[in-house]
Structures are given as C-alpha cells and as structure tokens.
C-alpha cells in the first residue's frame, strides 16, 4: 500500500534573529532585516511525509502559500526528495489570517486527493497552531496533533502523539491530517544530486482562481482577525501562599486554582 501525502510548509522570518530593526514604524514586520527560513516544525512535517514514502512508497507533494520568495523552501523540499511542489501566490491572498489561510490551503490540498496531510504544529511568526486543524476541519478529515510516529494497520493510520504527560496511541481513519513537532525527528539533509537537478527549478504557481477559491473568503476580506495591540508580557512570581499539609487545605487550594482558571 502506498500513500499520497501533501505537506503544507511556510517560509517565516527567523524570529531567533530578531533585532531592533525587526519591526517597521507602522508596526509591520521588516522582512529585509530578518532572514527568511523554512518554518522549523514544517521541516519535521516534511520528514514525516518523506519517511512514509520511504517505507511504503507513494508520493509527496509540498505546498506553500506566500510571496514568490517562498520558492526557496519549495526547492529545499525538492532537495529532500519531494515529488511535486506548488506555490500558492496571489494578491487576493494578502493579509490572510489563519481562517483565510486554512481555507485557501484546503482548496489547494483538495486538488491532490491525498491520503495523508502533514503540517508543522505551528509557525514561529504567529505561533497560533490553528492552520493545520482548520484545514482538517474544512476537508472533513480527522486532525491528529503532536504526531510523534506513524505506521499503518488495516487501512488506517496507527499513530503516536505527544500529550505532554505521555504518549497516546490512536488508530485514525484516512484521509487524515497530522501536525508534527520536532519530536518526530530531524529533517534529512539535502541530497546533492537533487540539488544539482533542481537548483534552478521554478515551482508551479497556483492562483486563488486556479484552485477555485471564493474571493470573499481570501485575504483581508476573509480574515475576521485583527491585531489590537502587541505587548511584551513578563511573567513574574508575586509572593507565595503556604497551606497546612492536610487534605482539606489541599482541596481548598485546588478549588481556588480551578475557580481562577489557573488549572483545568
């Protein structure tokens, strides 16, 4: 049994290299001052797709939505053994929030009728972790977050996901979407032979019309999110509370933490 996988990847500013020049006066990102990189967890998603192809056969398609400069990460994907790449680029897509982005990407993904869709858990520029699950929702697929490993059993995916306190094992109907973190494993190195083959490759581009998007759901028009303000919040401990080491006192503390939504 072989599988067709689509991997959604994103080019992001390297937030680890933020300097004072990172933001323009109007509050938008100064892309010239920040190197653009392959979103880290998308590299893990790509490795997940490539490992499935390596073990079971099939093909891997990488899609990104962005400016033409995002071709760079599509070529990086080709260097690792991806079969096809597509750049969704369109002025109508400008200003998309996660709702509009997941709509556009879902329309692109749909074209390839994949068995498996892989996304990074979240992108380091927005850190929302929303786009992957929203694509799954729109395609009517199960969304499996925090993927750690994947295998197959009786036509279903047998996966392990990181639930923070341990590992959960699930059997998932296909097609399904998976979001991946670094726990899946590091992306393989570029293959020099593929670099030689694809270094000048121009990826196929898709416009919103090509993938039959409703313009009112794309870009600014399709994005209800607006950023009110950004502030730097520094969390600091303020005092402490001591309680008697007795059941009643502990129960009271747990109730208080729960009521204040500190836990639960």
């Amino acid at each position, binding site marked *: 049994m072989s599988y067709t996988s689509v991997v959604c990847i994103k080019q992001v500013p390297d937030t680890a290299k933020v300097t004072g020049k990172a933001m323009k006066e109007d509050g938008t990102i100064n892309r010239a001052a920040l190197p653009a990189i392959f979103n880290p967890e998308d590299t893990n998603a790509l490795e997940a797709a490539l490992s499935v192809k390596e073990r079971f056969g099939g093909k891997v398609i990488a899609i990104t939505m962005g400016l033409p400069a995002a071709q760079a990460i599509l070529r990086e994907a080709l260097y690792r053994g991806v079969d096809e790449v597509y750049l969704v680029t369109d002025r109508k897509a400008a200003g998309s929030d996660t709702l509009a982005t997941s709509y556009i990407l879902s329309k692109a993904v749909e074209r390839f009728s994949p068995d498996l869709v892989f996304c990074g858990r979240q992108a380091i520029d927005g850190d929302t972790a929303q786009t992957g699950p929203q694509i799954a929702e729109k395609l009517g697929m199960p969304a499996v977050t925090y993927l750690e490993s994947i295998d197959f059993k009786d036509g279903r995916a047998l996966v392990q996901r990181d639930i923070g306190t341990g590992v959960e094992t699930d059997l998932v109907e296909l097609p399904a979407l998976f979001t991946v973190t670094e726990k899946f494993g*590091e992306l*393989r*190195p*570029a*293959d*020099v*032979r*593929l*670099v*030689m*083959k694809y*270094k000048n490759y121009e990826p196929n581009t898709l416009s919103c019309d090509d993938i039959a998007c409703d313009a009112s759901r794309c870009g600014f028009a399709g994005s209800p999110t607006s950023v009110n303000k950004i502030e730097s919040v520094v969390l600091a401990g303020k005092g402490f509370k001591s309680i008697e080491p007795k059941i009643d006192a502990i129960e009271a503390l747990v109730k208080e933490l729960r009521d204040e939504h500190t836990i639960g």
Partner: protein
Amino acid sequence: MSNFYRDNPEIKKTIEALDLTEVASLLEDGFTSESDIAPRSAEEALDNYFRALDIAGDITGNRIAPTAEETDRVGNILNEDGTVTYTPGIALAMKLFAQAGLLGIQIPHRFGGLNMPCTVMSAVNDMVSRADASLMNMVGLQGIADTINMFADEDIKKEYVPKLVSGEYSGAMVLTEPDAGSDLQSVKTIGYQDENGNWYVNGVKRFITNGCGEVLLVLARTEPDSSDGRGLSCLLVQNGPQVKVRRLEHKLGINGSPTCELVFDNAPAKLIGQRKRGLITYVMALMNGARVGIAAQGTGIGEAAYRAAREYAASRKQFGVTIDNFPAIRELLVDMAVDVQASRALAYYCSKCVDMENGLTQKFEKVKGTPEAPSVRERMKKYAAFNKMITPMAKYFGSEMSMRVSSAAVSVLGGSGYMKDYPVERYYRDARITTIYEGTSQLQVVAAIAGVMGQMTADVIEDILGAGWSDHHPRMKALLADLDETIQFVKTKDKQYHDLSARRLVDAAVTLIITALLVKIDVKPKLEHWLHTRFPQAHAGLLIVRGGHDDAVAKFEEIAPMPVEE
C-alpha cells in the same frame, strides 16, 4: 553548532585559488553528459561543488560534531555472532551521508554518484575530520567504490558500486596481516580457484578498518610459487558465513572506526581486474587515494584543535588577563593557524593533481591517434610524476602537522587540556594514527625522495605560480638553490647517506611547494610568518645534510647500544 563550510572561508578560498575549471571540464567530458544532473558548464560544476560542500558542512558541523565525544567514549561493539554494532554517532553519520549522496563523491552519475573531483572529496574529509576524525575512516572508504569503478569488470561494477553509493553496503580495504604491515609484498593470505574457475580466499587479516563491512577488497597471493608483490591479486569478498570478525582492536584514538581482525575460511571471491596486478596497480591506486584522504584528515584534526585552543585562550584568565595576551601563547596559536592553512593548501593541491592525472588519462583514451594526443599525454605524465611525489608529501605534512597542532592545543589548555572535559586530548589521540597508517611518515619520505632528487620541486612551483616566478620571490629562489646544491652533495655520497638525508631534503622541498601555494592563495600575513619561521629551519636542515654527519648510521651501536639486563 555551526556549518563547518560556512564558518571556515579558507576552504572555499583555497579551492578557488587552485581553479578547478579544467578539472571540471575533464571530469564532465566537455559538458556533454546526458545525465539530468550533470552540469552544463564549468561555472555550473563549480557551483555544484560548493553546494555539496555546504551540505557536507551542515551535516558535519550541526549533526556529527555533537556526537564525537560519545563516539570516542563508547566505541563500536563486537557482538557474539560476529557482527559489529556501530556507535550511534557513526551509524547516524553514515545514514546522513548516504541520504545526502555524499558516499559517491567521485563516482560517475550513472551509478548514482556526484562525479565530482578528488579536491571536493578532500574538502569533505577535512570537515568530517574536524567533526570526528574517526568518521573520516568510514566516509573515506568510498575509495573502495572508486577502486571497483576504476578496475573491475562491468558486471561487478553494476552489482556493487550503486549499493556502496546508496549506503546499503559499506566496504573495507583488506591488506594488512600480522607479518605484512609496511611490507605488503609479504602477504600470505591465499587466493585460489577451483576446477570451475571460482575464486576463494583463505587467511587472516588484521587492523582492518570496517572489516565488518559488506564489500571486502582483499589482497591475496594467487600465484603460489611467488614470494613478492607480483604474485598478489585483488579479490572482492562479500562478507558472509565464511568471513569472521575475530576481534575489534582497542585503540589509542579514532574509536568510532571499527578496526577488525578477519578470518577468511574458503570465502567465495571475485577477481578484480587482472591477476598479479593486485598490489602493484590496484592497491597502490587505492592506497594513494587513502593517503590523500589522510592529508585531509590531518588538516581537519588540526583545524579542530586550533579552534579549540584559540577559543580557550581568549576566555582563560591568568595574572588578570586572558592568556591570549602572552607572546608565548600567541606564537603557539599563530604557528598552529599557519600550519593548518599550509596543510590544507598542500592537501587540496595534491588532490587537484590527482584530478588532473585522472582527467587527462581519461581524455587521452579518447583522443588517441588525433593530433591532440601527444600534448595530452605529456601533461598526463607530468601530473602522474607530480603525484608520486606530492601525495606522500601531503600525507607526511598533514599528519605530522596534526600531531604538532593537537599537541600545541593541549599546551594552550594546560591542565584542562589533559582532561577529558575538553576535546583537545581526543584530537591529540586521534592525530597519532595519521603518521602511521597507509605508510608511516618515514615511508612517505622514501616515496617522495625520488622526485626531490630528480629536482621536480621547481617544476611543481612553476605549475603553481607560472614561469618566471623566481624573479618575484628571491627567498624561494635562494632556498631552491640551497636545495639543489644539497642534492648535488648527497649524490656524491653512498646509499645509506641518501636515506639518512631524505627527510631533510623532503622537508625543504615541502616548504618551498607550500610557500608557492600560500602565495597563490594570497594569505599574506600567514605567508610572511611562514617565510620568517620555516625558511631558516629548512636552510638549517640542508646545512646539516651538507655537514656530512652520519653518526646515526655509522655509530649506531656506540650511541644507542641494546640495553643489557643485569
């Protein structure tokens, strides 16, 4: 963590100065290949070379270097069933190199290789050795694929080369025996044919790097009546039930490289190339390739040691200041930096000469009988002659340099350098093998001296700097004249004195060739330091030779008598 190509601009600078344009054109047969990955111009080929180095720099710096300490500590494991389990770091590294296509750097495109020059291979070995010297012995074993590709029959090539490139198989060069080390002519392992013409191998081999690999190129005696190198052939044995790893050696360094003792019990084999040419042609070619690899290995160990020492000296405070303020420490560090650059220059230039010889040999086969043939043949012979001298020189200089520099690094770190908390003691231990295997330093001198006595040094300098160089470089001109005069003096003496003088003559010639390269690469402050410190030493060595002092030979028993037990 760091990309070992990007953080070391000397690698690119050295390769650019050597100009691989013609090498690329020869390798790609004038850019006529039909392969969809083959470059279409020299410019594109060079771009590919640098991209390959960038990927190798990423793997070595970011993925492998962090594993080197553990690899050194845990070593490989010989299992009860005779199989060997690699250290996690070595296993990971080999997987990454296979994925990157870097296990077939010099293999043609048709077998999945990169068809890149030896110079690229050496730069990769340089970075690999900086990350983990022991890994170079594994990555460098792609020489097995090169040897099969160069000399074996087409069906053997097709069966083995692609699998060695993909990493499905790994190989080993199986030469050394308990009684045949430096003297390989005395190999005793037997290769014989049954009545159907099938080959088998019987015997014991030791000190075999990666002897647990799948593809073993075995040097064996196939002519029972012979006793010298002309009776030896090269046989390919695929590892199986008739081959047993009897033990793994416990070594001073390069612990990631499994060093095996192998027993062959009527193991089925295939003949590589022609009978009787095993040692004199195939193994010599394989070993020359391995020597170039060690020149790069020494360079990489030196690079790692220099960097560790430089960083430590900038942070370690004594007497109220960081120790890199003290002239004695500064001199150690400057000597190290220049030594590493010198070694890199010679190793890469040597690799380029190998590339020129290989490329021109291939071209000569194609232009035979045309008006172009005589000039191609002449240049092919020139580089072949260069290689006989420069390969041992590069191996000799690179390996001795790695000992000097790693020892100096321990000195800079002082007590801390002697402890396992810092990597320099590992560099020091790893460096120690480089002057021994694939021919000791003493044997490299023996191999290089004929070219030096034949006054080839001037031809090499001219190859690097062009005719008329001596008008611009009076100090080099003077040292060359001193060398020539000393050569004439030695020619009047006996064989013993020739052998005794060889090292100092080779040292002077190496000093001159490296100087030409440092001029070419344009590393001015380093060149100046080299001239001021190494030239007086070279002249002094020649002065000693012309002094005619031969006590080391003539009064050996008087000065160094056998200790007598009371």
